[in-house]
């Protein structure tokens, strides 16, 4: 079975042109699902690299609709928007309708099961009611029974962040984390949060992850060596994934 590559990029990073280029090429190179970050007010669960990318784009990117439309036009694979529910509490319907109209497939609110745990089921119904899929975000700090329930209602796949934040390689035993969650989840399991170490990546795949979500690694690569180098990384990771197909 083919393992999924979920490629994350902050909307408009590092600039619109490079952003579009990265998206298009990464799909060509084997990205299965796109995860696009809309800069939130408070990126609670993101590490410094992604936070910096948010900061970089918010200085000039005032409108998210146009670039998202552009991306939708350019690629055919599923697009998921990553942003924080917190920012849309007062206008969620509106936001979801907009996404739906653009043709975005789904949303991923990393704060949904953490900060809105008492009402998450209502939110999931609401999101789905608007025709938008919802990818649920889980991690090691959630109880087993919540992960099981979430995996049943999560669309496309269940996201499992192995570390407390993106991009900071807190030492965790990736293999045992995933072996454990694999047994709980019937849905497709995509693992993320700090998987930019190839060793960890292989461990995740060996332990049964259906896919991986990579973000910080691409942004860092763009920052340091530019788009081409980041795309080379997409290719490399795709190669690793294919070893496990």
């Amino acid at each position, binding site marked *: 079975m083919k393992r999924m590559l979920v490629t994350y990029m902050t909307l408009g990073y590092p600039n619109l042109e490079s952003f579009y280029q990265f998206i298009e090429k990464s799909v060509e190179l084997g990205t299965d699902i796109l995860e696009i970050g809309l800069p939130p*007010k*408070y990126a*609670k*669960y993101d*590490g*410094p690299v992604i*936070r910096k990318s948010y900061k970089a784009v918010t200085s000039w990117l005032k409108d998210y609709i146009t670039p998202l439309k552009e991306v939708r036009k350019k690629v055919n694979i599923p697009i998921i928007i990553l942003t924080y529910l917190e920012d849309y509490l007062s206008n969620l319907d509106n936001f979801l309708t907009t996404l739906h109209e653009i043709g975005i497939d789904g949303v991923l609110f990393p704060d949904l099961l*953490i900060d809105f745990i008492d009402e998450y089921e209502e939110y999931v119904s609401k999101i789905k009611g608007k025709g938008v899929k919802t990818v649920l975000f889980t991690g*090691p700090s959630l109880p087993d029974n919540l992960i099981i329930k979430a995996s049943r209602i999560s669309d496309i796949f269940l996201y499992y962040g192995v*570390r*407390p*934040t993106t991009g*900071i*390689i*807190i*030492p*965790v*035993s990736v293999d*045992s*984390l995933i072996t*454990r969650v694999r047994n709980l989840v019937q849905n497709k399991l995509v693992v993320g949060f700090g998987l930019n170490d190839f060793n960890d990546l292989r461990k995740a795949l060996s332990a049964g992850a259906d896919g991986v979500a990579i973000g910080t690694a691409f942004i860092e690569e763009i920052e340091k060596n530019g788009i081409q180098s980041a795309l080379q990384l997409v290719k490399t990771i795709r190669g690793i994934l294919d070893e496990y197909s």
Partner: protein
Amino acid sequence: PRDPPDAEFSRIELLKKILPREVLRQQFTIERFIKIPEEVRDRYAIIGRPTPLMRAKRLEEYLDTPAKIYFKFEGATPTGSHKINTAIPQAYFAAEEGISHVVTETGAGQWGTAVALAASMYDLSSTIFMVRVSYEQKPMRKTIMELYGGKVYASPTDLTEFGRKILKENPNHPGSLGIAMSEAIEFALNHNFRYLVGSVLDVVLLHQSVIGMEAIAQLDELGEEPDILIGCVGGGSNFGGFTYPFIGAKKGKKYIAVGAAEIPKFSTGKYEYDYPDTAGLLPLVKMITLGKDYVPPPIYAGGLRYHGVAPTLSLLIKEKIVEWREYKEEEIYEAAKIFMKTQGIVPAPESAHAIKAVIDEALKAKTEKERRVIVFNLSGHGLLDLGNYESIRRRVEK
């Protein structure tokens, strides 16, 4: 854990730089059981683990209760409290990583004492930043840390930029736990040493779970099934370490966390993200808290003056798996005296809070004519807290 909004630096990244690698790994593990390394078990044996599980027979007689009262006596360790249980593995993991030196801050001194001893047990150097006012008021605590080979400084010091800045503003600054911690972390960062954490974090509760694991085995040996488990809560590490193994093994019917009425975090604290440390250097965690800038009144149980409750324990309280009590210090003092006269042990003022709840539950068992088995954690002795007892004596018995 999360970084604060608009953080100048990532607290989570900071953790990675200052904590021993394996400590951090254990902080974020989801394994239910983690093997205690042989080298840690060795040192546990040296400090007298397993600590005794004792029956408080004379307290039962005094209360004329049908309840049986047992206590796990963590004061039997050389540093007199449960703190050493986590200092040892943290020092070990630092040593294993090839680190030569560990650093921490201390207020009243219990934690610093535990770190100084743990470091000496793995031939590590240790530096302890002790809040200046405590350094001056509790010279014996300083002495014991130094006897264990620790280097103790009155914080603020001129060893760190942070300390120098504060001293420049006020050369006679009395210090604070937040300042001492900031200095300890800066000092550790500058020298590639490692910083040891005393409470609140999951990994600390994990290490403390040796208390509950032992207690379960000891009760089994006695053929006792516990009904009620009780502990006091400062940050939550002795309580969690004692009760979680029981909760996990579905042993016991009631778990009671006891705090000080003067620091009413259970009754008035909010369940929200807050800094676990007053310096705001650690990542935000979701917990019951009075706010990191809460200024606690000077009660005699210094260890309970902490503003929050460990995240896991906060959740268990929110979920009503763990009950809570808050008592005033006069009540605590009376309970402590009863315990001293019946059982002979001077309890740490913190642990005396657990005793008060035990007495109440034992009297309830009497009223209800139930032969309940009550087990509590006597997290430390009070031999180095006699000054605190003297101060409350003056206040209460005047």
